[in-house]
């Protein structure tokens, strides 16, 4: 670049860069980071229904909301349920995705694109709509689930009405709805595992199962970490499934943290308390993500 013209060009480029980048950045700062900081302040106040009419009515209460949450049985109940969603539901979902991906990617599988598309279809559907569909599928008398299981002699279950079964039933819908997403990512990862590695292991007499443990899984490790971390985060944020299917019941047995936050915030208008719940959820997600990263790093060193 020639010196005199370069100076002018550089300045024009910087101006264009700012003009093109700043509006989007400003929108994200104002409508995302702004609310997050505002929420932090909100969580330190007793902002409630009265404060909505007159924000100056909200008083600073320090960590009062957090202390209240940590002393509330409802919070611990929702935290426990959310942890089950995240650490039973998410691993189950990842396992189903991986198993299906191995089948779809197998050498002798026919119509690969067809199966990929079919398994992916639930991912693109509208969660609220399919949650309603599953509500009817789980219906004890007329639902297809009981009719299907009945064929194998399994007695009828009141899936969404029984506190022991409602949570597994919701996980059933959640796994069905999203396993196709990770399947796609796993299939892409599997296609990057070099064929020669498999062939070499086969020549050494390794069985299919041994090859899976010794070749496929280690090679898939980075994909696996990404998939587990993002899936766990998503299951931490479960909301529409219990909202539509059980409203958090029966006996609050499916009441996720986000649903609790929604109810406290938008049904009871305890916005200060609900903001504190949101930040507690954030803290739990960060901690869970850190633990997964740490575990995976240790695994790799071992």
């Amino acid at each position, binding site marked *: 670049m020639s010196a005199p013209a370069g100076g002018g*060009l*550089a300045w024009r*480029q*910087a101006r*264009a*860069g700012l003009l*093109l*980048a700043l*509006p989007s*950045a400003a*929108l*994200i700062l104002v*409508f*995302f*980071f*702004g*609310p*997050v900081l505002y*929420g932090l302040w*909100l969580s330190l106040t007793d902002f409630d229904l009265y404060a*909505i009419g007159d924000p100056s009515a909200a008083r600073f209460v320090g960590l009062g909301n957090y202390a209240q949450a940590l002393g509330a049985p409802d919070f611990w109940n929702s935290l426990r349920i959310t942890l089950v969603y995240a650490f039973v539901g998410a691993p189950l979902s990842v396992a189903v995705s991986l198993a299906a991906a191995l089948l*779809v990617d197998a050498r*002798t*599988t026919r119509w690969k694109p067809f*199966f990929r598309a*079919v*398994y*992916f*279809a*639930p991912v*693109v*559907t*509208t969660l*609220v*709509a*399919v949650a*309603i*569909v599953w*509500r009817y*599928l789980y219906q004890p008398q*007329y639902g*297809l689930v009981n009719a299907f299981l009945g064929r194998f002699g399994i007695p009828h279950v009141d899936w969404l009405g029984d506190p022991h079964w409602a949570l597994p039933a919701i996980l059933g819908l959640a796994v*069905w709805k999203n396993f*196709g997403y990770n399947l796609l990512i796993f299939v*892409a990862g599997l296609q990057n595992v070099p064929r020669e590695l498999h062939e070499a292991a086969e020549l050494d007499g390794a069985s299919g199962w041994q090859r899976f443990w010794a070749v496929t899984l280690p090679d898939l490790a980075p994909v696996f970490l*990404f998939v587990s971390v*993002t899936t766990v985060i998503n299951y*931490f*944020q479960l*909301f529409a499934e219990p909202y*539509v299917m059980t409203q958090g019941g029966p006996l609050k047995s499916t009441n996720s943290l*986000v649903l609790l*936050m*929604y109810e406290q915030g938008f049904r009871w208008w305890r916005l200060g308390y*609900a903001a504190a719940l*949101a*930040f507690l*959820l*954030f803290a739990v997600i*960060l901690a869970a993500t850190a633990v997964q990263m740490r575990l995976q790093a240790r695994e790799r060193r071992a």
Partner: protein
Amino acid sequence: MRPRTGTLLLNAVLVAGAALTVAPLLWMLSASLMPTGQANTSPPPLLPSRVTFEHYVELFSHLNLARPFGNSLLVSAVGTLCTLVTGSTAGYAFAKLRFPGREGLFRVLLAAMLVPAQVGMLPLFLMLKGMGLVNTYAGVLVPWLASVFGIFLVRQYAQAIPDDLLNSARLEGAGEWRIYRSIVLPNLAPVLATLAVFVFMSSWNDFLWPLVVLSDDRRYTLPVALASLVGEHVQDTELMMAGAVVTVLPVLLVFIVLQRWYIRGVMAGSVKG
């Protein structure tokens, strides 16, 4: 002989899995065509005794579902357009234009991906209330104005545009705006198509935010309208299934037609970690 049995078994398992996967969707469609009451019989019928479209007619006449359908279409279309404009401009700027503070600003934006969306939701509601945007289309659109994911996606792709191409245009006297319009945008077309499909579907399916920000049923999007409909018509299985079909069908069609672009977005998203 053995490998053939293996192949057969493998494909049988895949077919069974596929059948289980589509069964809920097929039943939804089938039940939506059943005469009133047929779905609530035991054992549950798989096919309509007589195909009827009465539930669809009722949805669009008496229950006026066309309104939320139009709302969803409007919000998703405008939201997609906004994300495309902000994503393509900022994504290109962060990838290719040198300006002071570029790296720092980009890192700040990336940090937003770490924060769960729910954390900002209550305060955003209060902010919009202060601005008079609660219960408006603009209020529903706010989260779709600019997306960090979109900026990130476009930036990744724009980095592959050769600098020489841009610099030679500059030396020929083209202004930066013209370069963006006539060189950058055409080059970004594939990634913008991916982003468009992605955002359209996410905003069509979005539930929590429209539920929070909309209180007037004339502005409800389809998922919110459906969730409120099930409250009143929980007994009308066939009618609710017709409503579910109407909600799901547009996104399924978009997916089937534009599969290639959508799948590319999933892959690109998986690289971001």
